């Protein structure tokens, strides 16, 4: 029934002319039948189009419960052995994490200086797929890592298949980490905040807060023009756009109004002050791109002057079911812990 009605629409679409159809853009009159306006059942459908109301409500309730149960059952007897772990070597790259930005907080050092930290929570971070060196780019292997759990609805089948192979519920953010061969992890390995240790440095990448289409004063910090003294309709405009007769054109990359924000940016060399192993929270120095509750990609820093602080990390990652029992809070040596008495200078 639906197929027949769709075929009817495609026939009608072929017969209609530009005048009869309402289209937003100008359409070439000599174009063929307008079948692309019509959706056929075989091309796309949403997940609960053919489900009854009851069934879709049931699925909406059931799936998050199942995923929570999956996430909470960390020790599964049916799991296979993890891949062999190799010791850390200078120059090896290890995997990173995906975290959620919670907010910001002040932190004090033992000498009384005040710094600000961003709280990043690692929620349900798993390794999804391993891509060997030859398939990725010929130089280094890659690991796909997924962040927060999200719904399996409205996703492509190939993506869902990848999550099924890893034995992990679908994630909201999937990112790639270039990894050296001695740091590869088995797909399905959970990653925790204790992967990073206080005192090391990280780089955080995220999409900045989107500000939309912005003018040149906000986007590039131009000074604009005076508010009064005869300015005719010119207060926030860019002014001149280049030298003059010699290039007689505008240089490519000229700063002009346009989309501001909502692009990926990285903050480099951020010190980790504290790790909460119970709730998986990383306290990272300074500010981090993105709004609150956004997903970030956290990895060991690339800066050459800070890499010496990243020696001997938990390699290839921190395993929660291993022998190491960490205390609930790990602090950097310089950080003031609130359980200590007030600072007294001597």
């Amino acid at each position, binding site marked *: 029934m639906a197929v027949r009605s769709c075929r009817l629409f495609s026939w009608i679409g072929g017969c209609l002319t530009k005048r009869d159809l309402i289209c937003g853009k100008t359409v070439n009159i000599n174009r063929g039948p307008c079948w692309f306006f019509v959706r056929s059942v075989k091309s796309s459908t949403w997940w609960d189009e053919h489900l009854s109301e009851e069934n879709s409500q049931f699925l909406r309730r059931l799936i998050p419960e199942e995923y929570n149960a999956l996430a909470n059952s960390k020790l599964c007897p049916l799991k296979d052995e993890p891949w062999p772990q190799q010791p850390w070597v200078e120059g090896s790259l290890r995997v990173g994490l995906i975290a959620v930005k*919670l*907010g910001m*907080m*002040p932190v*004090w050092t033992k000498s*009384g200086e*005040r710094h600000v930290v961003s*709280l990043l*929570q690692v929620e349900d971070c798993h390794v999804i797929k391993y891509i060997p060196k030859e398939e990725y780019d010929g130089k280094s292997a890659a690991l796909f890592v997924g962040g927060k759990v999200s719904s399996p609805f409205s996703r492509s089948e190939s993506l869902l298949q990848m999550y099924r192979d890893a034995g992990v519920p679908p994630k909201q953010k999937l990112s790639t980490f270039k990894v050296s061969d001695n740091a590869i992890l088995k797909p399905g390995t959970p990653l925790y905040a204790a992967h990073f240790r206080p005192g090391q440095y990280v780089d955080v990448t995220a999409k900045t807060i989107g500000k939309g289409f912005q003018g040149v004063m906000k986007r590039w910090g131009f000074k604009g023009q005076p508010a009064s003294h005869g300015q005719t309709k010119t207060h926030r405009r860019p002014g001149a756009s280049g030298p003059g007769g010699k290039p007689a054109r505008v240089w490519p990359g000229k700063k002009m109004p346009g989309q501001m924000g909502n692009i990926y940016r990285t903050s480099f060399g951020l010190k980790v002050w504290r790790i*909460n192993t119970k*709730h998986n*929270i990383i306290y990272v120095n300074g500010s981090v791109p993105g709004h*609150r*509750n956004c997903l970030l990609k956290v990895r060991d820093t690339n800066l050459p002057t800070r890499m010496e602080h990243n020696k001997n990390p938990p390699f290839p990652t921190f395993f929660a079911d291993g022998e190491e029992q960490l205390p609930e809070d790990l602090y950097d040596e310089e950080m*003031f812990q*609130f*359980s*200590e*008495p*007030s*600072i*007294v*200078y*001597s």
Partner: protein
Amino acid sequence: MAACKSVSKMNSTIRCLNGCCKCVVAAPSHPRFFQVALSRCVSTDGGNGDPPKFQPPPKPVMIDKSKTEASHRRFLSPEFIPPRQRTNPFKFAIERKDMIQRRKIIDIPEFYVGSVLAVVMADVYASGKSNRFVGICTQRSGKGLGATFVLRNIIDGQGVEICYDLYSPRIQQIEVLKFEKRLDDNLMYLRDALPEYSTFDFDMKAMPPPLPGAEVPINQQKVKMKPRPWSKRWERSRFNIKGIPFELYFTEEELTHAKKWDTPWVEYDMLKEYDTSNVEKHIWTEVQRELSK
């Protein structure tokens, strides 16, 4: 809306009951005229022929008779109450743990804007490595661990305001010398007041500590100001200052001119309403429980 409700007879004079308009109209026997005269009687003009002023309806005051005044006053420091934001409440819970840990080490007493405090802070450059400052608390701002308070005093003729972090580890002792509240939440106008209102002796003796359930004493003092111009136009309603006797410094005209900046609709703005009573209760019980551990 007060309307002429009582009418003795159709044919007699119609008189307003509320007394604000003095229309006394002799009504003829036509029923239509009766209605029209009624609507006219409703106008609340002052009798000058000015356009009628809008008198907003009084906001209903809910009096909860179930709670008695004698019940224990429960004080929750304002920095515990989370702001109305899109932050995950879990983040506030994590911050509260740190705040409670700090409060176990050092006693941060209950105080309000208008109380006189003495703060001893560790200072590298001071002799004895710590300095003590006494002053009146003019503002309390910030939420969570970044909460601050500003102490003001006048030392050797120079006004000094110091902003302290409540949870800074450098603070060694906070002592309340005078426990009271003022008529306002923000005493920034003391900068334009006469110096005697901001001077407090460093060797001031501490008042006896308040009883746990007692009401906070409110100091009804009205402060005398230096001659105008002031640093801010304190007479305007956005500051909502009750502690300055404006009649001594402004004429009637100037006060009505200041009323131009009134924003009476803000009181009724439902989007700005933030009822913190439930949140406060939960946080208060949580804080008491953790502090007693």
